[in-house]
């Protein structure tokens, strides 16, 4: 099925956050069922460029290799996605690998995505329980609500939606679709809903929901098919109601 003998990978590299990026190419023997990860592993075993130069192996993040941890997100042939599910036979050659651009590069394909987690703190993305001791069964939740929550809860904080978003940049405070969707997730839980107002207030300030330019690309790149634009619309509605409520309460 595949006449390819070898695969060329062209990688954007950078030795440290402040260093200048540069490109290097590698030729790797074709193997059945290979993905970007297995190619990067092959380079680790033989870190030699296409020109025959010995170099450092490429630094990249990965862990689960089955698209549930979100670690190995990078830009592959111009598209942000996970490297583990990027099968070589389904990619156009040569393959270009770049780090995500909306997060500070640490080294080669590694970036620092702490901002995503800081935002989760800002919107109190948790269910405020009273204590972890036995307090009996949890609240009754219909399976429909569960299904709605489950889809949102599959968000791996991988950052694809933020990378693709025209509004989200290295130097602004925009929270982005992933964060708004988590607000929706927790507002949908009977106990989580007790913090609804605080969560909404958090996305009504700077970098919040009103900064969304409605480009709708987030939903296209989400590897988990999370209905991000629905979440944005829903949180938009919730915050509007909250604004009205605030006017009457003041």
């Amino acid at each position, binding site marked *: 099925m595949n006449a390819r003998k070898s695969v060329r990978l062209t990688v954007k590299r950078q030795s440290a956050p402040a260093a200048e990026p540069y490109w290097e190419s590698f030729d790797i023997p074709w193997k059945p069922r290979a993905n970007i990860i297995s190619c990067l592993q092959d380079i680790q075993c033989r870190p030699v460029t296409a020109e025959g130069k010995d170099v450092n192996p490429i630094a990249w993040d990965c862990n689960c290799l089955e698209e549930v941890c979100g670690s190995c997100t990078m830009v592959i042939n111009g598209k942000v996605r996970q490297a583990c599910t990027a099968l070589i036979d389904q990619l156009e050659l040569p393959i270009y690998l770049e780090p995500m651009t909306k997060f500070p590069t640490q080294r080669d394909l590694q970036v620092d995505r702490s901002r995503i987690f800081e935002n989760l703190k800002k919107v109190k993305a948790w*269910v405020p329980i009273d204590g972890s001791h036995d307090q009996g069964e949890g609240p009754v939740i219909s399976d429909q609500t569960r299904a709605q929550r489950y889809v949102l809860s599959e968000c791996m904080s991988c950052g694809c939606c933020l990378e693709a978003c025209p509004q989200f940049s290295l130097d602004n405070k925009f929270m982005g679709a992933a964060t708004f969707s988590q607000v929706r997730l927790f507002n949908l839980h009977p106990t989580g809903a007790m913090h609804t107002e605080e969560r909404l207030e958090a996305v009504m300030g700077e970098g919040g929901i009103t900064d969304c330019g409605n480009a709708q690309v987030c939903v296209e790149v989400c590897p988990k098919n999370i209905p991000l634009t629905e979440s944005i619309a829903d949180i938009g509605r919730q915050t509007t109601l909250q604004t009205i409520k605030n006017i009457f309460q003041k």
Partner: protein
Amino acid sequence: MVQRRKKVIIIGGGLAGLSAAMKLCERNADVVIVSFQNLKRSHSVCAQGGINAAVDAKNEGDTPEKHFYDTIKGGDFLAHQPLVRDMCHQAPAIIHLLDRIGVAFNRNEEGRLAFRRFGGTLYSRTAFAGATTGQQLVYSLDEQVRRYEHDGMVERLEWHEYLSAVIDDQGVCRGAVLQDLRTNKIFTVKGDVVILATGGPGQVYVRSTNSVVNTGAAATTAYLQGAKYGNGEFIQIHPTAIPGQDKLRLMSESARGEGGRVWVPRKAGDTRNPLKIPEAERYYFLEENYPLYGNLVPRDVASREIYEIVYNKSMGVGGEPMVYLDLTHKSEEYLQDRLGGILDIYRKFTGDDPKKIPMRIFPAVHYSMGGLWTDYERDSAGFIDHGSPRNQSTSIPGLYAAGEADYQYHGANRLGANSLLSCIYTGLMMSRAVINFSDNLNKSYEDVPSTVFEQAESQWVSRFKEIKQMDGSENPYQLHKDLGDVMMAGALIVRDNSTLEKTVASVKDIETRFKDVKCVDTNNWANPVPSFINQLHCMIELSKIITKGALLRDEFRGAHYKPEFDLQQPKNFDPYEYIDYLERKKNGEEVSIYPEGHLEYMERFEANNKKWLKSTIAEYKDNEPAISYEDIDTSILTPRPRKYD
């Protein structure tokens, strides 16, 4: 007694580490939680199928005692019974807690928890959140820990690597040596207790169902520092994985729990499209050989049967070492709702849609029943004394272990959906032990001379300097692959002593080649190579524990299968005969009343247990694992032969 908030350093942000962090914050401790990557990206996210608790939601008569019995039997009686019993009794409360913190568990018509079947039991005991249960549990616990972080009680040191414990002159653990994986700076943190919740060691075999960081290096370092390592040779091989170049991805047992059937064509080498092969020409070997449990026999049994089919009978699909796992008789909607996540994985990585065509699967290294030896205390009534500082303590005071990194919950073979439970159970249960240990310390880490910490740090600084200077001819990543090949060839599903002897020697060869490694990157910023070389060293040490333990254990128990020592259970044997036999023997009654061959079998079984029903303990001496055996607590259920047909 220390009069301030306790300070606990938790290494690992999988389910064990996160639950320990949450509970310890609740008990007012200051927590530092350390992990290679963001906690949310820990290996526990891989768990697909679910988590066990005998809630009896389907009115099948399930009870925690039955869960206990299934777990002990599934583990071929090698687990510590009081602990397992406690875990099974706590399980329903744990599930309800997880539900309360927002895990999106599937639900029944009434909006309460739904349960499914898993291997090794006849009850619907497994709660699940779609096909990504582990991910959902990690997220919910991570959120609780984030909440405490928001309140200033937790410090997250993500992108940090644990290198070793700091141990003072009295042999007490006083903190940890860490490396910042960005700046590559090595430093120490002081604490009352260090908890290793660092997961399993699948990377010793290179290609397994495990994540990339699962090298077992943290636990192995503890062993190198003097901690006991238990039951290392018990490595679970999961019967159903998807072959791949970088990883053998799991096809969860839940696929069989939801009705998946395992088969091969009756005619070896049949090349027809599987959908065209009529029912009568399919060999559903698990269903035929195990009418009672069928496709849901425990994992060790299923893996051996598949091995038998593809290697000894050469009946693998298309002549390759693979069998079919078939779900095509179920409706697409049902499959999407119940198993969507894992079926997507199969489709994404193979290009085939398992809703339309049977999957091709093969066994893969999956889980380590063994791990750091940990202690516990039972009270006079035989229950676990939850206040005892001994619970989950390793043999180094002040160093604790939890989750897959410990050793005593799953015996010789773990049942599906019991690991997530044991991770969360240990994480929660150990909190009082940790607090009480800290309370009882007669000297606090503040009073430990600073030289203890300085020495620990400088030792690692020079170790890494040495590693960076390694300039031999071996690429460390290639050497790791070679180690994996050695382990796969010699210490997998079927084991025999002559192969194991060769494997022990081959690991030695790898150890020799390790001295000739080249550090292929010598940068001082975010350089993963020196860390990896250190981890590789640990993996070699761990391979020695696994292979030597396997070589010495001359019996067949659970995942440790040596055909030569199979006790040959008679076909028509009933395990209760053995209980009867023991009773008669005790009462001095006649024992020659059993069907032909049964008495001899029971005598063999009894003698074998006398010799081998013990934990394997490895201790690091003269660069080798010194192996000894320790009695286990079997005071509740009499060990007896296993049978699943």
